[in-house]
């Protein structure tokens, strides 16, 4: 499935993601990592620990509706793969981000911005294996 090249929109999205990471650090002293926020939401250290995560997640989930209000269109979420692949992929992502201690937001944005060696290596690693997986799935298995 072809998708349009959207450099300005993607850059604007990236700037907002960065802004939210800076604000979360400045106000709460926390890393804006989706993995960490979600993992702590599932198994919180206490009520106040759960509350800030729940409110942050509620804000995240409201994002698409705000895009709809402003632009009149839902943001595109095109899922070209069968549901089995979403389940298998989702489970593997859950294992990987837990053992690896972060994902695209935690390692890829916040960790890279702190020049953390662990995050830089983690990001290079998952970008490489994602690329290899996409090549295998699309061009070798033809899915």
């Amino acid at each position, binding site marked *: 499935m072809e998708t349009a090249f959207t450099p*300005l929109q993607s850059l604007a999205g990236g700037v907002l993601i960065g802004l939210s990471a800076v604000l979360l650090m400045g106000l709460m002293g926390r890393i804006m990592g989706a993995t960490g926020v*979600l993992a702590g939401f599932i198994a919180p250290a206490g009520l106040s620990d759960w509350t800030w995560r729940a409110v942050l997640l509620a804000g995240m989930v409201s994002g698409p509706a705000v895009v709809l209000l402003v632009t009149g269109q839902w943001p595109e979420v095109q899922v*070209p793969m069968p549901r089995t692949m979403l389940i298998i992929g989702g489970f593997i992502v859950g294992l990987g981000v837990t053992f690896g201690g972060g994902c695209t937001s935690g390692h890829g944005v916040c960790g890279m911005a702190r020049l953390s060696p662990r995050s830089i290596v983690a990001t290079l690693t998952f970008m490489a294996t994602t690329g290899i997986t996409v090549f295998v799935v699309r061009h070798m298995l033809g899915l």
Partner: protein
Amino acid sequence: MKLVLLYLIGLIFGVGIAISGMANPAKVLNFFDVAGTWDPSLAFVMGGAVVVTFVGYRIVFRHSAPRFASSFQLPTRRDLDVPLLGGSALFGIGWGIAGFCPGGALPALGTGQMDVVVFVAALIAGIVVAKMLGKIGRRAAS
């Protein structure tokens, strides 16, 4: 006040993800599909996010503490170990199969699409299983 600000921070993240294309598996997979229907857009997401965070963190860290907490909670480890490398490699495999990463999928839940709900349920199952395996591993090691 604190909770209102937290909600707004989440919202900024969610809007950013939604307009960037990170919540769209078709676009994410095309970013990696250099040999096929390549769409380089997502390089601009990461570029923009990392530059803003790099500069913003430098301003934030001039202060001795965050506004609403006693200290900055930052990872201090600098060593590379097997869980970091293996976990990250595994994450990439899953991302390449499903097209969603956690930060892309959570805001996408707001579209109400069943595919996103299915992915997030599987993601949570993976996190829970990994935590249980980690506990067993630590018990065996001690």
